[in-house]
């Protein structure tokens, strides 16, 4: 990988660049399919493929840990929550009607709002110096180790308190789920 590359995303040259294009186009196609699909279960499947393709893009960017998190938490955990919403809410009548396609105007507004910062970066070419930062996310004490190691080194030393607070968040989620779910389960029985 030569440092003289002036194109945006100099990280991804050659075969990796083509792979990025393939993954990105597929991920976007899947994302569109999520919105357009009539059956919520099909939407969920398209969302799952979109998550997996985004994980591939993370791995292409040498952010392996984020890629693994994407698969484990998004394709694993978040997907379960989506499926549960479908399972608990989805009724026969919903299948025939177009349920999720009447918010085009609002959705378009949000898309434009999110698109603007990206366009700004593209326009002003304020890209980070990628060739120099290539190993920034896999370096531990000046030595190249791996993305997961680098994340661990920062997370468990510099961000000790946020890490411990995260467990309190998880505890709150757990207790909240029990308080809400257990009471309504008792009511039903």
């Amino acid at each position, binding site marked *: 990988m030569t440092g003289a590359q002036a194109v945006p995303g100099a990280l991804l040259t050659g075969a990796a660049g083509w792979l990025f294009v393939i993954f990105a186009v597929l991920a976007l196609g899947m994302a569109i399919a999520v919105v357009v699909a009539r059956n919520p279960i099909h939407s969920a499947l398209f969302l799952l493929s979109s998550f997996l393709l985004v994980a591939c893009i993370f791995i292409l960017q040498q952010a392996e840990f984020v890629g693994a998190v994407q698969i484990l*938490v998004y394709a694993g955990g978040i997907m379960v929550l989506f499926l549960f919403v479908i399972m608990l809410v989805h009724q026969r009548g919903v299948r025939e009607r177009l349920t999720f396609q009447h918010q085009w105007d609002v959705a378009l507004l949000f898309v434009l709002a999110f698109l603007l910062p990206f366009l700004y970066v593209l326009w002003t070419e304020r890209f980070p110096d990628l060739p120099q930062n290539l190993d920034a996310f896999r370096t531990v004490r000046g030595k190249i180790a791996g993305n997961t190691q680098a994340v661990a080194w920062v997370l468990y030393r510099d961000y000790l308190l946020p890490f411990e607070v995260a467990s309190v968040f998880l505890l709150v989620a757990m207790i909240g789920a029990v308080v809400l779910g257990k009471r309504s*389960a008792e009511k039903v029985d």
Partner: protein
Amino acid sequence: MSDYLPILVFALLAAALPLATILIARALQSRKPNPAKLEPYECGIEATTFALDTRFSVRYFLIAVLFVVFDVETIFLFPWAVMFNRLGLFGLIEMLIFLTILVIGYFYVWKRKALDWA
């Protein structure tokens, strides 16, 4: 990056195999549609309700949320395990604090009998 080449080849092969079976089956099959072929196979009776007409117990949701919580917990365990040797005793103690807080929650769930199904 080239370390991932075998994984890519593996993924492509894994995708090609079921695709090939479906396509070959479609190419070779003789198609004679028949309403009897769409009926439930031998045992069982015709379904009278749509699968999603019945309501599900909220307990399933409880299990799902607990799964997500512990799923996120493993995400924190993984990088810690990879760097365990270099984080040393300091890392061990902070992970023990992290896990203790979560185990408190686990015991709460257990004591509230949220995991009991009956």
